[in-house]
């Protein structure tokens, strides 16, 4: 066990899997110069053939990952910021998600498309997208959204070993956060298995990606108010571990879905709908979503920061659900 950051976890997962399997290679814009620190020393270690700087051409090189996978390689594509997936949408949705199916199983597409959720730091609307729910609506794509270094490493290694295309959404608010990660070279977390990050009895908070860490902080504070919160992290969005969510809600009878993405048709919406459909009998209160509202993200930090799910908003929601009074506002 060593304590490493989320970025180091990405680095290790990639390095170990490239070491293990010569079919694994990585490509992306400016990947050789290691902008975010996830490919440290890669060119020296794996050579220029397996560590490829691409043209600025997302549809081109993400589609090329599909082609390379079909002929036996296992590409990792670093698309850097999630917003840059839009130019590649067609290759992702029409080719990568569908080829295995359309050709009746003839096509193999073992590949990973990584991109980060780059929000909260004044990068303005065109760089701040968190579009995983769009891909959740497209069958044929597995999706991971880890919330800490431990999960990041285990899930990314599983993704690289998986024989289906996997999209990895990496929350930049977690980049520098450290956690204990096993040293075992075969440490993988199976895709589709969520985790209860904190046990509780009054209300279930299902949180996505970086929101898990906020939810955990809110849970800690709510404990002081006598509210016991269970925090569930699905970790994988496709396949979604509906069981772990439903089990928790059946226990607590209350659910809050926290998602850094825009509200409408979000992962939070999907989780809320699942709860309303399958755990209705257990529900003692409305299923609440705490998300980013359906506005774009502005540059100016003063108006950007309050848009994201926060500890305070989760606490408010929890108090409302359990019928606890809001704390008295402090005199200014």
């Amino acid at each position: 066990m060593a304590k490493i950051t989320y970025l180091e976890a990405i680095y290790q997962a990639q390095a170990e899997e490239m070491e293990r399997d010569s079919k694994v290679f990585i490509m992306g814009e400016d990947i050789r110069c290691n902008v975010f620190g996830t490919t440290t020393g890669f060119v020296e270690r794996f050579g220029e053939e397996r560590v490829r700087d691409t043209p600025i051409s997302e549809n081109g090189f993400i589609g090329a990952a599909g082609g390379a996978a079909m002929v036996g390689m296992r590409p990792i594509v670093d698309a850097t910021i999630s917003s840059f997936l839009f130019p590649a949408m067609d290759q992702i949705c029409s080719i990568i998600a569908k080829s295995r199916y359309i050709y009746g199983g003839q096509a193999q597409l073992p590949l990973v498309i990584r991109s980060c959720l780059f929000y909260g730091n004044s990068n303005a609307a065109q760089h701040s997208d968190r579009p995983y729910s769009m891909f959740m609506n497209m069958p044929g794509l597995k999706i991971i959204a880890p919330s800490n270094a431990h999960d990041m490493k285990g899930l990314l290694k599983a993704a690289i070993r998986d024989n289906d295309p996997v999209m990895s959404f990496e929350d930049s608010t977690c980049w520098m956060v450290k956690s204990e990660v096993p040293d075992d070279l075969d440490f993988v977390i199976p895709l589709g298995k969520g985790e209860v990050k904190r046990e509780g009895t009054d209300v279930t908070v299902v949180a996505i990606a970086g929101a898990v860490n906020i939810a955990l902080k809110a849970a800690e504070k709510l404990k002081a108010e006598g509210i016991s919160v269970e925090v569930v992290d699905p970790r994988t969005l496709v396949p979604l571990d509906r069981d772990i969510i439903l089990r928790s809600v059946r226990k607590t009878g209350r659910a809050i879905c926290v998602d850094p993405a825009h509200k409408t048709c979000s992962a939070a919406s999907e989780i809320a709908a699942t709860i309303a459909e399958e755990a209705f009998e257990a529900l003692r209160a409305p299923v609440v979503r705490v998300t980013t509202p359906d506005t774009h993200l502005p540059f100016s930090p003063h108006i950007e920061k309050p848009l994201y799910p926060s500890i305070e908003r989760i606490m408010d929601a929890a108090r409302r659900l359990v019928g606890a009074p809001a704390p008295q506002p402090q005199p200014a």
Partner: protein
Amino acid sequence: MTAIGDNDRRIEKYRRMQRIRQFETRAETIHAAGEIPGALHTYAGMEASGVGACMALRDDDYMVGTHRSHGHPIAKGAKLRSLMAELLGKVTGICKGKGGSMHLSDFSMGSLGETSIVGSGGPVTAGAALGAKLQGLDRVALCFFGDGASSEGAIHEGMNLAAVWKLPAIFVCENNRFGMSTPTAAGVAGAHVADRAHGYGIPGIIVDGQDVDAVEAAVREAVDRARAGKGPTLIETKTYRYADHAVNMGRDLTPRGPEHDEWLARDPIVLYRARLVEDGVSGADLDAIDVQVAEEVADALNFARESAYPAFEEAFDHVFVDRLPIPDDVRAHA
């Protein structure tokens, strides 16, 4: 243009062109009769383009095609049974009935898909070429795309990527004068699609798409270049589609000009037959091939007709490696 290749290869080219033509003639008839669901885009008139290109490839080379998907696999050597069964939506179809007429892709022949999103084969081809290179295989990847498709960003990105990385790729633009109802010049800037090559610093070749030998020769040169590590080539085959964009649509969308008859007069199969006969092949031998092909087509159709439709479970297979569970409420009424 001097004929190339030994006699057997030339007979094989003739045979494959005949196969495409007869396969499609039959398909068109049974489509009109309602036996094939969905749209049917035929390749008639373009046989020399596909066959010429594919005969320049090895069996283990890769190929990516389009919605006009019947010609390419047959040109590459695919057997007809599973193609016809696919058109009929049968489980014995090459795609288990899940792809249909726009997707007759036989991976055992090196195909990596016949994709019906116009232009989307470009990046896949670059990727396959990259994959071959990374594995130290001396295989090449060939991309068929239409004149209309050349306007898509995906084709540009695929060619740029292949050129920057000097990948063993060949881009074959089958310029059949139209994209649906749109004449090439109304959608594609520049005199020739092949002129785009200049911008990527790669060869851009124009070839008579009705001359199967000429197409083969041009593609062969590109293949040699590619295998030698010298990077991609863009080849434009000037050809023509006889039928409307898709057949049996009720009205013809294609604005035919006076050149229509000139093109019909340069039928690639008729031309090639004449050349072969001129070169000493007996007409009777060629007739025998025509008959053999007719039998193959009939056999394929029999096979297809006798095959079963896929079971409902098939709809949930191959989304992922593991079959998806079928929701109860859906299964209840399947």
